[in-house]
């Protein structure tokens, strides 16, 4: 691996670097296309057909169809791009964020109201709480 990556030991976090960007290029550019209202409609009409217009991997397409943002991120997606899928679905950013944490939206919203997720135990992979 050629890039120096000091950020690989942060738990639950994928830094969008050049390697991720290359892997996710077409996935993210597909998301970008959803900034046009006509494309949002075409996607909603037939998601699979719309996705098949992009040279994405099958895993990327399945992750989008399943609305599994963690899988999308593992496949090279960046959250600012992926947010446009949520916007197309009429979902809030908080809904999307919650969906990645394994919490219900209510649980996640309650955590945020109580001051958010603590950094304690969340700084290093394998760190004790």
């Amino acid at each position, binding site marked *: 691996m050629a890039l120096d990556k000091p950020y690989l030991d942060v738990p639950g976090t994928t*830094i969008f*670097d050049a390697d991720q960007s290359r892997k996710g290029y077409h996935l993210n550019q597909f998301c970008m296309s959803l900034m046009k209202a006509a494309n949002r409609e075409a996607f909603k009409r037939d998601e699979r057909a719309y996705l098949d217009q992009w040279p994405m991997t099958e895993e990327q397409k399945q992750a989008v169809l399943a609305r599994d*943002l963690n899988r999308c991120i593992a496949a090279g997606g960046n959250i600012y791009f992926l947010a446009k899928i949520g916007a197309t679905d009429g979902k*809030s*950013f908080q809904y999307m964020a919650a969906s990645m944490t394994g919490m219900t939206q209510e649980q*996640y919203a309650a955590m945020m109201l109580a*001051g958010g*997720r603590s*950094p304690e135990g969340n700084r290093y992979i394998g760190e004790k709480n």
Partner: protein
Amino acid sequence: MARITASVYTSHVPAIGAALDLGKSQEPYWQPLFKGYEPSKQWMADNTPDVIFLVYNDHATAFSLEMIPTFAIGTAASFTPADEGWGPRPVPQVIGHPELAAHIAQSVIQDDFDLTIVNKMDVDHGLTVPMSLMFGQPGGPNPAWPCPVIPFAVNVVQYPVPSGKRCFMLGQAIRRAIESFDQPLKVQIWGTGGMSHQLQGPRAGLINQPFDNAFLDRLIADPAGQAAVPHIDYVREAGSEGIELVMWLIARGAMADVAGGPAPTVRHRFYHVPASNTAVGHLILENN
């Protein structure tokens, strides 16, 4: 000559824009947040500048992965609020200041900053939410923002983003550029984004109040020290999107004390958790 009168720092959470646009600002969830910006709106009314140099980041709106500029300065006559997928925010066109923007671009490029000059660009919530927070929502028969804005977009989407040190140095170059402009303009420089937040993955929702408050303290009193903090500390302590805070260092670097002048006056300071997924921080520093 032009001069920098003050710097303003604020988060630019998209949900704040949505709350304002949908008339929710008086709801219990949002009320404490907007209350924190009431003194700011009064201060802006009393201290409206001739131009705002607004440092923000684009969130995969104007810039896709086709081209990712580290630093991009908007030299156009106007900039349209973007459709980020929910339709454009119902706020006015942003009027630019092409002459001052071109002057700053020329000056800082000759000062060894490798800017990208942008003449066509839609602006997203990163720029329009701070405008709404500081000015309120423009209304009436001829709604318009009260002054022109020079958008300055920083890459914080794809790693590596510019270092805190680089951002702080850039702010110093921007101050020199503005002070060499031959019209007597009052210029504010705004740094936006942050504070602690993470929008992605199982760690989403991270908030670090001690980190945020220490950042505010140090931004005021020891900005050069804060500028030396490496990226990884922001990621680890303030969340992957907390890295946006490096943009505050551009605005801070443009203040007079960094060039040997007097320390600024802290006109307002505010901190609130949460706004959607994010901690909200806000400062107003006046040059003396």
